[in-house]
């Protein structure tokens, strides 16, 4: 070969490589294969459903530890409000932030901007749009609860939008929009939906819940100056709850076992057929969906039930526990005698058996805890599959009935017949006598009257009893904190939760068999190696008692001289109305000077 032909060969062989590769014109076009491009989406009902199901957000079994922010429990946890109340200096946006995150609204609004593209019937589109607006209402309700006034956005924003720097819209306007969303949702969301997702009745329930919150909030919070507008919201509650009641689809779960039926709602492996459950969050370990929180619910994790809650439960005959002389000096075993059966289905009681043990559980005491142990949410089993697979009732019919009763009582239109078809159904399940409106109104509970001094009018007595019913029925279901906020009684949270009462050193029965189980000794005394045994030959469990902060194992109010167990001594201060709200983060005000800080926050 001569030089020239060699060059030609080189060029040809080089060109060959180029030909097989370079000629792919789309070589530099690469597309993902594991995510969806929006341009080709939102066409079918499946698309709408895929997106809406992605928005699903429901409370789960962690709800059972949610009451630690209320007066139902003492807590050792970093709860924002407790922190604010015990802080030595005034909290600011630097030390007490709210949740100013807007990603969820963007997800919702993005759907509302695109769902119309789907080539499906109008009622199908509106069903999904209704669900999106239901989620938007829930989102904004959460924002209003924190900040009262917030900017309202009904579309997704882009970086160049001037609306990014909008100021807050007034609460009235935001709530009107929330109500418009819910109105649309209740009219368009279908009744029959996939199990574990919200249908029309869940939407109606949410409408009632938000309206009841807003109605009572406006009625009792004078800082808003909106008490005149409260009535509209109670009307909405009455209408929405009546609509659910009228479906006749739901009932209070009862098999005629007053000591078990209530508890069954919280420890069932399958609630899908339970007619009390309006929205279900199902768990099944075999389907990769499990939640086991025995260690958090029970024992000395963070929260422990307060004595105040236990005293709220009525006696089994319907009389008031707090009317009994020296009720505040009762020992643990006595406290649980002849009470509303829901008490023993909510808290650990003296004869309780913990699986897989063969003998009664002896309550463990610990400093900073109340000594009481929570049962609701605890799964009494040592089998992990069972513990993980307990279903959670996100919304149950009981909530509808109590909202109905409360709204009608606040409207002043409640009748005994109304009570009999609502709150009294809950009492009948557990074998409690009915709540009588005339009796309640004639003789309002002085204890509750002191707790809720802002309730006025002829229905005071029955409103107190409905509030008691709420507190009892939904204990440890995370509704108490919101209730305290909307009733404008945040001051109740200034009371430091107290625990079990012990008159002093000595031996105590904790299992109700009359035989001592524990021995309280004064601080400083050492536990003998050879422990005292009870009449059954079981060694006693020893605790030293003393004043708070000392070296004792259990803190009592009067140290070695007894008293209730002390969970905390830091003085709590609930500043009204400021602590009902949360500050807008300081950085957001720098980024958008049109945002104004709310209710005296700095």
């Amino acid at each position, binding site marked *: 070969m001569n030089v020239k032909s060699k060059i030609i060969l080189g060029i040809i062989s080089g060109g060959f490589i180029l030909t097989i590769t370079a000629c792919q014109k789309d070589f530099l076009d*690469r597309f993902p294969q594991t995510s969806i491009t929006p341009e080709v989406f939102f066409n079918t009902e499946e698309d709408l459903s895929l997106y809406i199901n992605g928005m699903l957000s429901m409370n789960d079994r962690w709800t059972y530890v949610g009451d630690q922010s209320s007066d139902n429990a003492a807590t050792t946890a970093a709860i924002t409000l407790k922190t604010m109340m015990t802080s030595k200096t005034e909290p600011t946006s630097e030390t007490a932030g709210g949740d100013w995150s807007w990603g969820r609204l963007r997800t919702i609004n993005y759907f509302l901007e695109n769902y119309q593209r789907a080539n499906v019937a109008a009622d199908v589109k509106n069903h999904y749009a209704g669900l999106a607006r239901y989620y938007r209402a829930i989102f904004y309700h959460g924002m209003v609860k924190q900040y009262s006034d917030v900017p309202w956005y009904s579309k997704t924003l882009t970086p160049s939008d001037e609306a990014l720097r909008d100021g807050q819209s007034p609460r009235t306007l935001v709530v009107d929009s929330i109500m418009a969303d819910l109105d649309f949702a209740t009219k368009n969301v279908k009744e029959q939906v996939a199990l574990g997702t919200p249908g029309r009745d869940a939407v109606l329930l949410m409408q009632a819940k938000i309206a009841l919150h807003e109605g009572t909030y406006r009625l009792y919070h004078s800082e808003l100056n909106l008490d005149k507008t409260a009535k509209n919201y109670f009307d909405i509650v009455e209408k929405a709850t009546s609509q659910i009641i009228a479906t006749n689809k739901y009932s209070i779960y009862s098999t005629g076992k007053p000591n078990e039926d209530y508890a069954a709602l919280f420890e069932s492996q399958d609630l899908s057929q339970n007619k009390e459950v309006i929205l279900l969050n199902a768990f099944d370990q075999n389907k990769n969906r499990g939640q086991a929180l025995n260690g958090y619910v029970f024992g000395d994790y963070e929260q422990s039930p307060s004595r105040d809650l236990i005293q709220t439960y009525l006696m089994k005959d319907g009389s008031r526990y707090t009317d009994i002389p020296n009720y505040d000096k009762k020992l643990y075993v006595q406290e649980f005698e002849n009470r509303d059966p829901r008490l023993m289905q909510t808290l650990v009681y003296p004869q309780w058996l913990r699986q897989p043990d063969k003998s009664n559980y002896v309550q463990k005491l610990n400093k900073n805890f109340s000594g009481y142990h929570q049962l609701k949410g605890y799964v009494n089993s040592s089998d992990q599959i069972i513990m993980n697979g307990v279903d959670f009732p996100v919304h149950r019919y009981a909530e509808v009935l109590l909202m109905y009763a409360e709204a009608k009582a606040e409207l002043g239109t409640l009748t005994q017949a109304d009570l009999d078809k609502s709150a009294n159904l809950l009492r009948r399940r557990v074998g409690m006598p009915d709540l009588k409106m005339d009796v309640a109104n004639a003789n309002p509970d002085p204890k509750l009257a002191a707790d809720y001094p802002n309730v006025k009018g002829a229905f005071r007595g029955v409103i107190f009893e409905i509030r008691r019913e709420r507190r009892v029925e939904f204990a440890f279901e995370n509704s108490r904190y919101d209730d305290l906020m909307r009733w404008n009684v945040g001051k109740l949270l200034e009371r430091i939760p107290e625990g079990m009462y012990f008159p002093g050193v000595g031996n105590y029965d904790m299992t109700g068999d009359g035989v001592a189980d524990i021995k309280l000794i004064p601080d400083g005394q050492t536990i003998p190696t050879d422990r005292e045994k009870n009449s059954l030959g079981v060694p006693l469990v020893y605790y030293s008692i003393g004043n708070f902060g000392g070296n004792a194992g259990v803190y009592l109010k009067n140290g070695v001289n007894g008293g209730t167990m002390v969970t905390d001594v830091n003085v709590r201060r609930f500043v009204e109305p400021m602590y009902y709200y949360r500050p807008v983060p300081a950085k957001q005000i720098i980024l958008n000077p049109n945002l104004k800080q709310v209710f005296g926050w700095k």
Partner: protein
Amino acid sequence: MPDPVTDPYIFSKLLELSTNNTPWDYVNYSDEHYQWAKERSDNPSLEDVRIDPKDPKRWAYMGNNNWNQYFLNNSAHSQSYNLTFSGGAKVNELPFKYYLSGDYTKENGLSKIATDYWTRKGMRGRINIAPFQWLQLDNNTSLYNTHRESPAASLTDIYYLTPIQVAKNPDGTWANTDAGRLAARLSDGGKSNGDTFGFQNTFNAVGTFLNGDLKVAADASVKREYYKSNGYAKKFKIGFGPNDIREEGGTGYVNESRTDLNNTVFNLYANYNKTIGKHNFGAMVGYNQEEYIYSSTYVNRNNLISSTLPYLGLTTGEMTLNAGYSSYATRSYFGRLNYTFNERYILEGTGRYDGSSRFPKASRWGFFPSVSGAWIVSNESFFESLKPKISNLKLRASYGSLGNQNVGDFSYIQTMGTSLSGYLINGNQQYVVNGAPPLTIDPNSYTWENVSTLNFGADLGLFNDKFFVGYDNYIRNTTGMLTAGQELPGVLGTSVPRQNAADLRTKGWELSVTYKDQFELANKPFSFDAKVVLSDSRAKIRKFKNDERLLSTYFNGYEFGTIYGLQGDGLFKSADEIKALDESGIVPWGALNIVNGWPKFKDIDGNGKIERGLTETNLKDLQVIGNSADRYRIGFNLNMNWGGFDASVFLQGVLKRDFYPRHYLFWGPYQQPYANIYPWHLDFYRETSDTAEERAKHSQAYLNAGLADANHDAAYPVLQSWLADVNDGKGLAIPNTQYMLNGSYLRLKNITFGYTLPHELLEKWKIQRLRIFFSGENLFEFSQIKKYVDPEAINNGTDGSAWAYPFQRKFSVGLNLDF
């Protein structure tokens, strides 16, 4: 890894104290606990497990364990062997060369109680032929197979264990503690196996024409890797009490994954070089393209039919399936022109035109030119007289730009991710869309980032280049840096995507000094070379949209690594001091009490309040207190050879760097009271001494450590949990001068000794070379922070947490055999 405090009395007492000083006082040990802790502290030979006196159906524990020692080997041993055949011949007067080698490596992992290792088997074959005088063909094939076996549980979980836990019950079951569960998971709870099979082939052809002036080269290389993994978890048993043994770990599962990686690169270029008298011209044009495709499938199925048969085909439960896919492609055209006059003056210009699949069509291509020149002073005639001493002197200058495509493969394409719903919908988890797609990308601000570097340098060789110095000084301007966009009000509900959002300028220099020599030592040649490379750079933002100059993101003039923090001012010693300075704005969670022994800071803006500014224009009490960037990076390399022995040493380090610790490996209970207490924490502030009555309760070790005595001159503040909680970012989680650490280090990365047997000895076996060697990795470091964290791990994590897999020293032995 630092060794924690293991004394059960000291640990219990201090952990309780740390929460007693907070509103969240939940660590509360009983009198009986302390009594037992004291007994075991005074006499460690006592049993560490007993029946719980409060609950006779359960075990109670009082360990004094250092879990690092229980779970981890101090160092890892590995071995490595290499066998090589190589040679050549002439075929038809043209050269033919071959090379064939095999290798085997096994590295043992850290776990003491579970199988944990990695192996590699590989072989490589290479042939080089010249079918014609003008054509060289070279083919290089390598095959390798790696295998990794490890327990299903993660070893880093040992960071969460406390010393008072125990791993085993007296009846031999695993204990009802986190340590017992971790041990059970590691030893009985399942395994994970990973196998990689790799194939790599590079074919290369070079044609030489015009008497060597023109070279045309083409190469094609293909790399394929198949990765297969198999993992399973199964039930294990935990002993709660003497007759209460429970199964945990659910129903078990098996997962399998298959991954396929395909990477292909083609290059084609022609190089023309011509020398005419003193003029040398060169020109080059070329083309390059690369393609990368990665795809994977993963399947997991629950519920083993039998715990002894952990195979996918023998599972009956819920099945989940996942797929992964990623791909990119690039194409480039490039060219170069260069001219050298009289071996003294060199001029060169290059240009590249690059296209990437990572950018949208409209902004896919970028052009990156550069020019450079050099003057070889030592070749000048006037330098002749200096040549014996200064053998080489070269001055260089260049200005050039390159493109960076530092973004995700498909980031410009707006997509919505999907995943399995967490919830059961109609009884099953279902695939759902995760939410709105990110913001759309503006192609005008989404293209190659341009990195232009102006460089001046010089090379100096002394004494026949035995001693060689290279120096470079550069300014690098990055325009259109691909980074997260400006910070916008939170109501946007999403972040501004990565785009060409910033301009950056980096100034730096690099100095390298090499010394190599060879001389006779005991009649055998001794040769060595030593090289030190020292470099430094600093980078500043020159343009970024942040009108408010928020500290949470870049702003004009921001220097990378800048640490804004508070000036430490000791600890509060009295109520008056506390009253005189309002530190409420930096109280963690807004809740801890400021008491004597609390850290005190300087009130820079003099308003009586310690506050952190949010913007650079209003820093309040913040100041620049350091810089976490690596400064003065150094590498040192030494190689020696003598009479068959060889030795090499490699050191690497960073000579200046600030590190502010923000993790509980440093802060222990000051961070959160969930795990260990470390010896340095014992020097915490104690307001008062204990009374005689209290002392009587303490163990001797507690008294000996001085923990019952007041400590006003303490290195650490009052023992208060969450005081340094990084999750809240206040208190001591705010960088401050008092606890700033010196992050510089110099580490002995590798040291190797080898011995090659004399050739004569091996000749009859036809062995060309037989070398045995021993090497150690990461054997030692000069570092102030090594007692807390691994100095090389401190840039891990966004919060500078230094969180890393337990650090290990490695020893290996090996063999090279060449035929």
